[in-house]
């Protein structure tokens, strides 16, 4: 579904991505592990069109999406859930979800997507008409993921969804992501530091370091200790 070949990216003169090659197959849950500051978030930003690539190619379902702007990529079916969330703080939960369904493909599916989103995040249904600026950290995380779902994506790029959350909420978030994959068949590429949980969710993992893929493994052939070791 997603083919990334020798992708490079820069911030000014600083080379952040040094030729990333990976792929994500339809229906998979693929986890991306690696130390902070080595380019994992940048990779997702480039894939979602928020940051320009310097070189390389990105293909989605056979189509070259390398230089496409963010809104076109959303239209094609890729949704990005940034770690910073970037919610519309002065709008309510419902209004944020409504905006999530902005693209043309998502509009007719809005009602059913809303129902699904409220079923996996019941907390949000209670807080429908609450301003996002008043939500707790976990709740705003849920809104961010839910808003991404409203865009009727085929592929979800999730950046550290559990960061800063309490253990209970963390499990809930991972549970929800699992549900999204199982019930909706949405493909997931997830960047995480929470190795244990992500490993349980994922079918395949990539180890990412210094702007490149270090190695790739099926999730059941690797354990937490091995990955943690690779961080150093």
């Amino acid at each position: 579904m997603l083919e990334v070949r020798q992708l490079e990216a820069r911030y000014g003169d600083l080379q952040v991505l040094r030729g990333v090659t990976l792929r994500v197959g339809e229906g998979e849950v693929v986890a991306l592990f690696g130390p902070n500051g080595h380019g994992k978030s940048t990779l997702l930003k480039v894939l979602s069109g928020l940051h320009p690539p310097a070189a390389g190619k990105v293909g989605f379902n056979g189509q070259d999406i390398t230089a496409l702007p963010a809104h076109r990529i959303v239209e094609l079916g890729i949704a990005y859930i940034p770690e910073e969330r970037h919610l519309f703080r002065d709008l309510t939960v419902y209004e944020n979800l409504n905006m999530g369904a902005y693209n043309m493909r998502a509009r007719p599916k809005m009602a059913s997507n809303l129902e699904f989103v409220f079923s996996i995040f019941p907390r949000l249904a209670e807080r429908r008409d609450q301003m996002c600026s008043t939500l707790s950290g976990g709740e705003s995380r849920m809104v961010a993921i839910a808003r991404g779902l409203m865009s009727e994506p085929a592929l979800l790029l999730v950046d550290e969804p559990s960061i800063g959350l309490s253990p209970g909420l963390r499990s809930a978030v991972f549970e929800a992501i699992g549900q999204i994959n199982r019930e909706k068949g949405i493909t997931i590429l997830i960047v995480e530091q929470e190795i244990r949980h992500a490993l349980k969710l994922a079918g395949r993992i990539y180890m990412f370091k210094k702007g490149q893929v270090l190695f790739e493994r099926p999730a059941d052939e690797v354990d937490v200790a091995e990955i943690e070791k690779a961080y150093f």
Partner: protein
Amino acid sequence: MANLINAIVSGLIAGSLYAAMALGLTIIYGVSRVFNFGHGIVALLGAYIAWLFLGQMTGGLLAGTLVSLVAMFLFGLLVYRFTINPLLKKPGWETSTVLFLLGAGILLENVLLQVFGPRVKSIPSFLPGGLRLGAVQVNWHELSLVVIVLAAIAALNAFFKRTRTGQAMRSVAQSIPGAQVVGIDIDRIYGLTFGLAFAVTGFSGILLGTKYYLNPHIGWEWMVKGFVIVSFGGLGSTSGAIYAAVILGVVEAIAVLYLSAIWVWPIWFVLFMVLLLLRPQGILGGRL
């Protein structure tokens, strides 16, 4: 006492006109963070276009207003597409857009001067007669202006709350990355915002033109008042701009009553300086 009440009423009316005028400024800033230093001239241009239909061309004020709205909308789109957009892509855009719009405003002002001449123009009021409520004197025309402004504000509100594009504009105003991840074409929204704001501003110019004399220099005066109003109300907040405009309109009228008219300008300046020194984010910061 009667004088004071009349002054307040007069101030409320002027304030509502100022509110209409300030809206365009705050809409552009709210969505794109570009401050239109040519704002006054945009209002004037809108008024002049409508004025053309009073004499040179047939159709009268209504036709003139419609043409003005469409023309100003297109003008806003073009200005964004060909001048602001390229500037936004380069670093230092905060300064370059300010200087560019200033220069463009002066250019346009003088072009208008050449084309329309320095003599004042005015758009006639559309309803004769007035109303007397005790000691207060109001004319129908001015009341109708207030009604029109209220209707325009309600329409804008509905636009921002109910239409897809309006909601997109609000979203962009709040978070650009957020807007990007939900699939909003930021560039397109910026263009539409400029178009909308120019149309609204031009429309306010027409309204102002029925009450005040039009000449190219009055654009500058409107603009400075607009600046004070939107700063007062909180940059980017439409409700803030409306409240600020009304308050400042009343203050201005009362000041003119008790001091002479030459003190109007200094009062605006003093208010502005005090405001910025005490509470730069505006008294009434809110959302678009």
